[in-house]
């Protein structure tokens, strides 16, 4: 890109939004360094959330997995694992933070609206309007083995259930009229007669009849996040979500293409283009110089991709158990025995293993890479590496061209992994007018600059924004 007038961009005044994703799984979290902290101690969560709040982050974000990961039928033992229930942990964080949003990843397949909507509502009230729900779906029987209904849901129905779930949840969240709660002890009842509306819903997924138990929060109801990347997932987001937690934030062209696609889907769903925030999950590695940042990245990758992890990832690509081989030696001589893998365990989903392996061989030979170096160099390239000022310039381009609205930062170290970003990068961004200098309000919806919940708008408002 040639440098032009900084104001000659589609969004000359856009600012970045940051969230932080405390991952709790995957090999991207380094557990072997001297300052690798606990993945379950409440102090780790408090430290990350309070650092993020110091850096004026919009949201603190927790993931969820409903079954411990396995590879080849055995529990996957190479990565961090063992994390708290998201809503429960966030309710605790509500007590030790004041402004930051608290977003729970919760599954619409293995929950029921009466329970989950109420838990999120409680979080929203305890945090005075800072709750968010990242709606995720699953359909597999493997996860279902931990639940009463087992693997009951067809793959094709997973987003249908999510959408119906969300509709019931919103009805519950909207079930109390504003001002329904008694103003004084002399009132007729605690909630005004007739002001709490039962929710009766009968659909393919849910047949329920219940009285909502809680009034609206300071932000109306929880902010809806969505993270699925499939076409169905994107359409679901365009119809329902306030924020997309995407996987398209490292390469500018890729990010912009994704954002354009989402805006197209938003228009098709009858929503204004600026009704949704796009926050890709992103690793950010900072050094005082470009060289230092690259050196740091090299160290980080070696911690993340241990010899066993490299053999595991390559093993999935080849379809061969490579454990016991030398990860710091050359690539396996055999040809891959599988055509495609399932994309699990941090490996890139491939549909033609032979071609990929041929490419790996060629590149490894040309550079003299070991298997581990090859896995690092040719695995998913994620995130941004640079100096605070270099990154600030880069992010200006991303946000002001509308490729992203910000980033959901995935720290490689817990609990100190945000310190550089908050202490070094945020001030650079603020100096350029690219980042707020104070919270916009008290609720997550306000931090993100969102309109009121979709269900609170009149029809014309919904169209015009």
């Amino acid at each position: 890109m040639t440098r032009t007038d900084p104001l000659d961009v589609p969004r000359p005044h856009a600012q970045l939004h940051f969230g932080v994703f405390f991952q709790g799984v995957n090999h991207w979290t380094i557990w072997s360094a001297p300052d690798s902290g606990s993945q379950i101690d409440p102090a780790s969560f408090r430290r990350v959330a309070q650092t993020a709040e110091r850096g004026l982050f919009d949201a603190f974000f927790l993931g969820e997995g409903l079954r411990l990961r396995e590879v080849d039928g055995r529990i996957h033992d190479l990565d961090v694992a063992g994390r708290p229930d998201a809503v429960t942990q966030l309710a605790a964080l509500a007590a030790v933070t004041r402004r930051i949003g608290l977003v729970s990843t919760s599954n619409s397949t293995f929950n029921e609206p009466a329970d989950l909507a109420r838990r999120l509502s409680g979080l929203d009230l305890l945090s005075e309007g800072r709750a968010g729900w990242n709606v995720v779906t699953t359909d597999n029987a493997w996860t279902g083995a931990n639940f009463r209904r087992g693997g009951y849901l067809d793959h094709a129905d997973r987003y249908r259930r999510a959408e119906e779930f969300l509709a019931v949840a919103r009805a519950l969240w909207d079930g109390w009229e504003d001002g329904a709660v008694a103003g004084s002890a002399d009132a007729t009842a605690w909630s005004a007669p007739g002001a709490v509306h039962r929710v009766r819903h009968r659909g393919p997924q849910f047949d329920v009849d219940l009285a909502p138990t809680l009034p609206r929060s300071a932000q109306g109801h929880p902010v809806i996040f969505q993270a699925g990347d499939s076409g169905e997932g994107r359409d679901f987001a365009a119809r329902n979500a306030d924020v997309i937690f995407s996987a398209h934030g490292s390469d500018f062209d890729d990010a912009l293409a994704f954002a354009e696609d989402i805006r197209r889907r938003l228009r098709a769903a009858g929503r204004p283009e600026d009704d949704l925030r796009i926050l890709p999950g992103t690793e950010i590695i900072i050094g005082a110089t470009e060289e230092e940042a690259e050196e740091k990245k090299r160290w980080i990758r070696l911690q993340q991709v241990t010899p066993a992890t490299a053999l595991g990832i390559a093993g999935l690509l080849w379809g061969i158990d490579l454990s016991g081989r030398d990860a710091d030696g050359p690539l396996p001589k055999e040809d891959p025995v599988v055509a495609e893998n399932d994309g699990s365990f941090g490996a890139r989903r491939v549909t033609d293993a032979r071609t990929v392996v041929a490419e790996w061989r060629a590149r490894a030979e040309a550079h003299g890479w070991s298997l581990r170096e090859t896995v690092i160099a040719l695995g998913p390239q994620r995130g941004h590496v640079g100096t605070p000022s270099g990154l600030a310039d880069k992010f200006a381009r991303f946000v002001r061209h509308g490729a992203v609205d910000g980033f959901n930062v995935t720290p490689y170290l817990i609990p100190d992994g945000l310190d550089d970003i908050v202490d070094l990068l945020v001030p650079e961004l603020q100096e350029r007018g690219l980042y707020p200098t104070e919270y916009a309000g008290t609720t997550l919806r306000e931090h993100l600059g969102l309109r009121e919940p979709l269900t609170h708008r009149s029809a014309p408002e919904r169209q015009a924004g």
Partner: protein
Amino acid sequence: MSGPALHLAVEIDGDGAHPAAWRRAAHAPDRLLSPRRVAGLATTAENAGFTLITLDDGVLPPGTAADPVGRIGAVERAAFVAASTSTIGIAPVVAVTYAEPFHVSGQLASLDHISAGRAGWVVAQEEHPDAARAWGRPLVADADARARESRDGVQVVRALWDSWEDDAVVRSVATSRYLDRERLYYIDFTGDTYAVKGPAIVPRPPQGQLVVLGRPAEVPAGQLDVALVEGRDLASVGAAATAAAAPRVFAEVEVALDTPDASAAERVADLERHAPWTDRGRLRHIGPAAQLVSLLGELSRYVDGVRLRPLVLDEDLPVLSRLVLPALSERRLVARPLPGTSLRSTLGLERPANRFAAAAVQEETR
């Protein structure tokens, strides 16, 4: 019996035990759901020297009134309270009549991590048929079926707490292993109505097993750490305590105390104008603090602890705090929890060995 000193628990759901308690609360009705109020009550109870607070819950709104009182979920309140306190035990009510035991186990284990080992669980049942309609699940129709769901639910929840050994996270740089998978267990539970595979997604709770409380009629004695018993008089409480085969027994006592502004009887009468205080067959004390002190002294001969259910929290908790607990403390009749102590330790309960680890060791030595 653990000794002569009583452990005192207090139920802090809503504004008090009376359905109209909100009318005498010291705050505007909508502040009931504010974080400041939720944390404030818990710190008051902690400072007073209570061993435990319990938080009632259910999928249906509390009470029977057509126009409901709002209630934040007990697990969420408990987590918020845990992060706002340092010493007191915290036990949310959670029913497993319809809920997913896998979720309940993880939520409660998380609460134990958050509170550094101060968590308990009051096992309850969803009795009303409306609960099935709210959940959208087939009706669990009668007492036997509910008891089955409780039994299976508690078994699954407890097994999942043991599905990680305490030291399953090994962080072995030499072998690149974060976990030792030999220290993780599939629970492979199969009951009458469902099956659960495991292991848990949350590491073993700091206490190993949370303190499980419940009514003997609803939960098998072998699954309980603390039996909650009730009776209208000392003799029937004593009989129920003897019959309960749990390691610890707590009696349920409803209290309305004289305050500087009004007698207990006047306060009850004031609220009875709006709604009845349903008799649930529990000991009920309406009167001066000194008489409650005597009653609790008597009770200490029969039970290890008492759960108090105050008429109006904002009115009765201060009297409990200023008069009742100090008087009991003076006579060494009340046990105050010490900072840094788990709820199990406070109650004199052992930290249980891991059932799966013990079995694995046996297997090895065979």
